[in-house]
Every structure is written in structure tokens, then in C-alpha cells.
């Protein structure tokens, strides 16, 4: 990746990451988060980790962020207005942030931290090499993780299973109406 592109995308990533925390409307924050994730995916792809980059887009930007959107709609998350906290909290927050920034600066500018560039063989991020590692070296870990995730899915479905009465009422309608009310309320506050 050429240096100017790296700097440009890096700046863009930082700006959109700041947008996630600075903006008051949760939907705007969500969109900033999506753009941050997309830029990070471009970084992966630029560094030859093509599969990881695309998986980042498919899984995080494409699927998980949609779930975030649903949750924001369903939980009636509203745009924050007015004062955001007590003055004491703000002072402590600023102090903590300044401390963190100083620490990061000292750590990164320390002389012992020499950047060692390791040139990976070309194609190290390809699907073939990834799959080869996953299904040979790390097969057991991979399968165990799959089973764990499957168990989590089954558990979630079992917990979320509706009682029969609710089904009669048409729970999906109820849920859609709830989401709509939530978004309406969010906009009223914002407007």
C-alpha cells in the first residue's frame, strides 16, 4: 500500500472512529462504525490479507452491524440531548484520557521499540494458506469453536422461544410496531 494512501485511509479511519463516540444520534454512530470497519478491511486487503479483509466486510460490516441497527431500532435508543454528565465526571474523564494519551506516546516513542518488518511470503493471506492452517494445524481448536458456537445458537433460540399465547397474537407484528414506535420517539427527540 503506497504511503499516501496509508496516511489518507488512516486519517479517515480515525475520523470515522471519532464519529462513533462524538455523534449523539445512535444511527449516525452506527454508520461511522461501519465506515471504520470498511476502512480497516481495506487495510487488510492492502496488506495482502485478502480473505481476512473480505471476511471483515461480510461478517462485521455486513452482518453484525445490521444486527446493531435492529437493536437500536428495537431498544428505542434516542439521540442524547442536553448535558452528558456531571462536571466531576468530565474532569476525571479528561484526566484519564490525557494519562492514556501520554502513556501511549511514551510507549510508542520509546527507543527499544524498533519496528521489525517481516516480509511474509506472497500469498500468505490467501484462502488456500488460511484453509490449510485451519484444517491441519488448528483443526481441533476450529472444530471445538464451531461446536461451542452451535451450542450458543441453540441456547439462544431456546431462550428466545416464544410462549404459545404470544404466537397467537402475532408477535412479529408486535415487535415491528415496537421498533417503529422506538424510531418515531427517537426522531421526535432529535427534531
Amino acid at each position, binding site marked *: 500500500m503506497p504511503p499516501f494512501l496509508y496516511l489518507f485511509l488512516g486519517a479517515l479511519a480515525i475520523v470515522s472512529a471519532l464519529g462513533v463516540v462524538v455523534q449523539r*444520534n445512535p*444511527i*449516525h454512530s452506527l*454508520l461511522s462504525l*461501519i465506515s471504520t470497519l470498511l476502512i480497516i*478491511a481495506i487495510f487488510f486487503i492492502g496488506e495482502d490479507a*485478502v*480473505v481476512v479483509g*473480505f*471476511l471483515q*466486510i*461480510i461478517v462485521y*460490516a*455486513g*452482518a453484525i*452491524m*445490521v444486527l446493531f*441497527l*435492529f437493536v437500536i*431500532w428495537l431498544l428505542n435508543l434516542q439521540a442524547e440531548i442536553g448535558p452528558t454528565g456531571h462536571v466531576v465526571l468530565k474532569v476525571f474523564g479528561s484526566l484519564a484520557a490525557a494519562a492514556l494519551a501520554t502513556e501511549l506516546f511514551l510507549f510508542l516513542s520509546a527507543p527499544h521499540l524498533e519496528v521489525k518488518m517481516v516480509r511474509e511470503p506472497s500469498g500468505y493471506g*490467501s*484462502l488456500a494458506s488460511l484453509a490449510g492452517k485451519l484444517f491441519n494445524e488448528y483443526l481441533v481448536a476450529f472444530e471445538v469453536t464451531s461446536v461451542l458456537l452451535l451450542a450458543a445458537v441453540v441456547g439462544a433460540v431456546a431462550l428466545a422461544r416464544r410462549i404459545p399465547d404470544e404466537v397467537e397474537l402475532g408477535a*412479529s407484528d408486535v415487535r*415491528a410496531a415496537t*421498533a*417503529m414506535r422506538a*424510531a*418515531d420517539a427517537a*426522531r421526535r427527540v*432529535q*427534531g
Partner: protein
Amino acid sequence: MTVELIAGAIKAILMILIGLHLAIFLLYFERKGSALIHDRIGSNRASITGFGKRFGLPNLGIINTLVADPLKLFTKEDFIPDGADKFLHTLAPFLALFPVMITFVIIPFGDTISIAGHKFDLQATNLNAGALYLLATLGLGVYGVAIAGWASNNRWSLLGGIRATAQMISYELAMGLAIVSVIMTFGTLNLQEIVRGQGGVWFGFLPRWGIFVQPLAFILLLTAGAAESKRVPFDLPESESELILGYFTEYSGGKQAVFMLTDLAEQALIAMLLTTFFLGGWQFPWLMRDGFHFPGGSFLAVPALAVSILGIIAFLVKVLALCIFLGMVRWTLPRFRYDQLMRLGWKGLVPLGILNVLITAFVIVGTGSTH
């Protein structure tokens, strides 16, 4: 290097133009083709000089559909409703169109072509992880629709947006599973390699197209693709009899046209994907690099340039045929109910997709070969 860069840009623009022209064809077919299927006359009013009528030709409605309607749309007021999120309301149509447009560049529309000593691959970008790119960009199409529904400050829009989001993430899964079984069959994620793998014949006459190996995956991708492009019978997000116009109720003028274009371009894209994965892409039946090898054993030599061009023509014909088929489905079936839609997606297509992947895996392991 420079030649390749310029060629890449030309190919990308060419591919997007093919997609847009298919969308325009679909716009016409939407009006006149639907009339043909419904046994109606369809749009036949506008005519500049009465040229066709003078010679006793039927009015084909081209002025109506391709000149008058778009002109009307683009000259209308661009309205943003009160209380809407102005920025996102404007951004949403582009968020919807952009992922579709960038997906066109990985569709191979021909074999290599040699011009002036340079050999060009007729695919805008030959990505090794092409199928992953495809899934990634298709997955991003949700946001335009969802944001349009939310930012409009209208309940119909929001309901349309919620429906669209749920529908698209549900059918993406079935779509992914169908594509996975194709990838397993051909042993590559590279779309150009998948098309190359479909060259040649079985039993001396049957082209080695993906549809004959993976018929179930073809039906899965066809159904999921129709659902992804939000067409009837899957047009719940915009169902005009229930939700006015769904997620783009509050859009007018050019922005509404962009949403309509997105739907049509998506339909063209689905036709291209089906062609690439199942109908041999640019493979012309019985045409090899050197010429036609007909089933009877006869041979007809064809020059190399003509072979390349015949490949492009084969690709376009297949895509067009599939576009028309998708349009016929659209004008034949009634709309699903929402619970039927979800049941079909999660209890019908997804288990079938998993089953298909399993069967494919067993066959590959059992016979020890791919394809």
C-alpha cells in the same frame, strides 16, 4: 503496466455500462413485457411523429418507458420531508446503488482476447477471492434500504426498511450456501476459473455447465437472488398495496429513480451471477479455442478473435434470457405473505442449502475429485 491500467479502467466502465443497459432493457420490459404477459396493451400513448402508426406498426411504447418517464422523474421536485434526517435521506440512494455497481466488475464477460499483441482477460478485476468479494458487496446493499426507511420520518418507510433488512439478511444466507456448493464443485473462488471449469462436454454433447452438476444450487440462488433484488414475489419491502412504496415512499425525482435503478441493476446482477455460476458464463456450446466441435464429430474452425467475440455474445444472450425469465416470474406469481417469506427462507432454502453443501462434500470425498 500502463496498458493494463487503461485496459482495466475500460473493462470496468464497459461492465458497468453493460449492467446499466440491461437495467434500461428491464425498465422497458417491466412495462411492455408485463403487458404482454398480462395480455394487456401496455404503454402505447406517446409517440413523436406517429412514425410507426403510419406504417401500420404497433406502438412499442419506447418513448413512454425510456424517454417520457425518466424525463418526468428527473425533472420533478426533489422533496425531503419535514423532520427527516436530511443528510441520510440524501445519502441512502447512493448507499443502495454503490454496492451493486462495484459488484459488476468481477463478473467475467469473456475469455481472453488478443488485440495488437496484448492479451486481455475479459474481466475487469480478476480477484482470486472473487466469490468472497461478491458476498461482501452484496451484504452491504442492505444499508441503503434500511437507512432510506429510517431517515424518511414515515412509518410506511420504516416498516419497509425493517422488512427489507430482515429479508435481505435472511436470504443472504441461502445465497451464500448456494455459492459455497458451487465453489466446492469447481475448487476455486475465482469467477473466471469457475467459468473456465465449465468448458468442454459430457457424453459428447452435454456442455459441462454448472446447472447439470448443481441443479439444486441453481434453484436456491435463483430464489434467493430474486429475494435479494426485492422483486415480486419477494417485494414485501415496497409492496405498494400495503406500504405505499415501502422504504422509498418519501423519495421523489432523481433519488427515486436511483432506487428503481438499483432494483433493476440488482436483477441484472443476479442474472449475471446465475450465468457465471451455472450456465457456463461466456462458454459458447461446443466452441473450443480453435473452433466448434459439434456432437456429431464434425469440426468448424473459427479464428481466435471471433471465438472471443462469440464468447461475449454467448454471455450477453444468456444474461438477457435469464433477465427475461426473472421478469416472467415477477409478472406471474403473486406476492408472498411476510410469514411465508420468512418460512421459505429459514425453513426451506437454508436447510436445502446445507443439505446441498453436505451432498457436494460427500460426492467430492467419495469420488476423490472436484467437478
